[in-house]
């Protein structure tokens, strides 16, 4: 008897310990939205979820709006735009709590949310208001998903590379033209790499640690657009020649030239790209959004001049893509109790309301926003530390953006490509073996999802 009791107690103990570690997944009560109903002049309260740190613009946006609209008071809730933060947002959306408007950043996640039916279609609001999408954003930039429009993009995210122009002048190299290739970048990176050991300066740095999209994926996107994982027949694309070019280039930069900030150092110590850039440890960094840090002399003191170029292409003579393009997807939660008020806010924020965000390096998608003003606002007081010509060209350039259309097993493929790339970079697995194993495993993953 006693023995049995002991066994029962033991199993409870094991269970309790087990659940503390891996549960939390199942405890969703589907509650109702808690926001107030709009009844005769009562103040409507909206909760907006976004990933930008509050002090980098959203706070000012909220203040501006609240001052102009005493009847609709908004509150900004920041979620960190990583796996954990997006999980938090997903959980809030699904349980229908405390979200009226949310700002999405990753197209795959956005599509997942649309599939799940937690996103309100905006067509009725757009037509009801005769809000002219073509005039405001360009109709190519508004994505229609299953015959509906689910979001308004507030930001035009042009993928770019920040370059330390002063270093470029020191080695007597001109600034490359905007139609440069990844090969040009690799050559330049090699020339910019100097020093040894603790004094080593790398030509180029990519954030392998925290970005959800790898270096390979960005290069592939520049060549074929956002559906870089898939062939036309739906199978995986790792038998295409562009992957071979991409891996050869990355392998050369990382393991032969040693001109990229080492993979191992980035994933272990997770150094900040902007920090390494202003410390002159990296001459070029990936990510034009780092401008918002570089212009902040208080936290990132430096005295060199920064130029910006759009991301290169793989081959000069083929059509190239700049990335997902339109960003900051403004959507209304299906469970919001104040959808009309939420639409009013979205309309304002995606046009004139976006101004405070521009101060922090974000580019408005609104066509009526003047390029000179964007550059002025972006560089702020430190115009002498930026190469203004390259910036103007960067913001006014004509880019092909690309929306992902096929998302079969995309999260799994992201994990797979990271794993195989690590084998290649860290263990010198050959490119052919890597691609063969990628092709086989990717096809299997795609097959399981079909």
């Amino acid at each position, binding site marked *: 008897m006693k023995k049995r009791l002991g066994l029962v107690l033991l199993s409870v103990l094991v269970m309790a310990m087990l659940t503390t570690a891996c549960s939390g997944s199942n405890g969703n009560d589907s509650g109702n939205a808690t926001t107030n109903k709009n009844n005769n002049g009562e103040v409507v309260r909206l909760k907006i979820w976004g990933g930008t740190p509050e002090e980098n613009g959203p706070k000012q946006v909220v203040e501006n709006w609240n001052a102009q609209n005493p009847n609709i008071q908004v509150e900004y809730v920041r979620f960190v735009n990583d796996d954990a933060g997006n999980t938090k947002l997903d959980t809030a959306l*699904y349980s229908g709590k405390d979200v009226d408007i949310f700002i999405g950043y990753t197209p795959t996640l956005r599509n997942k949310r649309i599939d799940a039916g937690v996103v309100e279609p905006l067509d009725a609001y757009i037509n009801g208001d005769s809000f002219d999408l073509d005039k405001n954003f360009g109709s190519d930039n508004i994505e229609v998903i299953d015959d509906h429009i689910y979001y308004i993009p507030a930001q035009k995210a042009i993928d770019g590379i920040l370059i330390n122009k002063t270093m470029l002048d020191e080695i007597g190299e001109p600034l490359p033209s905007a139609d440069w290739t990844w090969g040009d970048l690799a050559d330049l990176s090699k020339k910019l790499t100097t020093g040894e050991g603790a004094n080593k300066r790398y030509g180029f740095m990519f954030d392998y640690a925290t970005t959800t999209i790898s270096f390979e994926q960005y290069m592939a996107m520049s060549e074929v657009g956002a559906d870089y994982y898939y062939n036309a027949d739906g199978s995986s694309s790792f038998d295409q020649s562009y992957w071979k070019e991409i891996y050869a280039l990355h392998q050369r930069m990382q393991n032969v030239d040693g001109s990229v900030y080492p993979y191992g150092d980035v*994933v272990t110590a997770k150094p900040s790209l902007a920090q390494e850039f202003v410390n002159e440890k990296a001459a070029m960094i990936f990510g034009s959004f780092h401008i918002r840090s570089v212009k902040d002399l208080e936290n990132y003191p430096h005295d060199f001049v920064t130029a910006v170029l759009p991301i290169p292409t793989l081959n000069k003579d083929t059509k190239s893509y700049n990335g997902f393009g339109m960003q900051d997807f403004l959507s209304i939660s299906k469970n919001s109790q104040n959808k009309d008020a939420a639409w009013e806010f979205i309309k304002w924020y995606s046009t004139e309301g976006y101004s405070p965000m521009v101060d922090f390096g974000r580019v408005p998608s609104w066509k009526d926003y003047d390029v000179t003003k964007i550059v002025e606002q972006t560089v702020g007081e430190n115009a002498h530390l930026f190469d203004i010509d390259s910036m103007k060209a960067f913001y006014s350039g004509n880019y092909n953006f690309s929306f992902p259309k096929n998302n079969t097993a995309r999260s799994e493929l992201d994990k797979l490509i*990271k794993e195989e790339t690590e084998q290649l970079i860290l263990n010198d697995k050959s490119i052919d073996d890597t691609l063969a194993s990628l092709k086989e495993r990717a096809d299997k993953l795609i097959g399981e999802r079909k």
Partner: protein
Amino acid sequence: MLPWYNKNKEQLTGYLFILPNMLGLICLTFIPILFSAFLSFTEWNFLGGFKALKWIGLDNYFAMFEDPWFLKSLRNNFIYVAITVPLIMLFALPIALILNSKVYWKNLIRMMIFMPYVSSAVIVAVVWGLLYRPSEGLINSFLRDLGLVNPPGWIASTTWALPAVIIIGVWGLIGYTMILYLAGLQGIPRDLYEAAEVDGANSMKKLLYITVPMLRPTTFFIMVTLIITTFQVFGTIFMLTQGGPAGSTSMLAYYIYITAFNFHKFGYSSAMSWFLFLMLFIVTFFQWRQQKKWANDF
């Protein structure tokens, strides 16, 4: 003998006393556990709501053994536990013995060793990340000063990442184990030692024939809890390596999390959780049986 209704009343009072706690346990633990058992037989993306739920029977349980990521995580997990648990016990017992005798700065040392156990996993991961940095990290700088030309890449190397994670695991749990051993040492009656001294036993003999056997229940308890805890290692993996590089530190708890929240396969993820539970249950059950046998020998 009380009349039956009085006895019942007394029972009712008792049940009422434990009710608040039981309610919490039922709502937050038992119901989710049962729900996850149900989910393990389904295919479900939780973003799709209940209408997306599909009953697929035992398929999830079969799929596991054809999933290279699962098998790799399982293998890593076994290696992790098999090395971490003995190492922790090997370090914790001598420390406890030393701290149990008269030493200077006893409280301070005890606190320092216990500290990692109560530190936030986030901070621990950041600090170890800096220490393990291959090129300029503290550990490798030190090794280079010692004359090592090619120090290991630690968590940036597929061979060294698992040992690196094991080191963190051992470091983090020594304090807790040491406290348990200290408590166990306090429970050994002094007169046993005195009797042994009268018989002329030296300190080595006292350790081997009194301390170690008397600590058996403590050791057993420590082993069971350590195996359960280390099998579920998650914080370090999630914060520091994300299962990488190339899957070399992927563990079950982490892969279960990824499957649920990145791949949105809740059914499959629940099935793996139940597999983990059953595995731990069986391991613990046999340990329990073994313990009974030892107790009889004694």
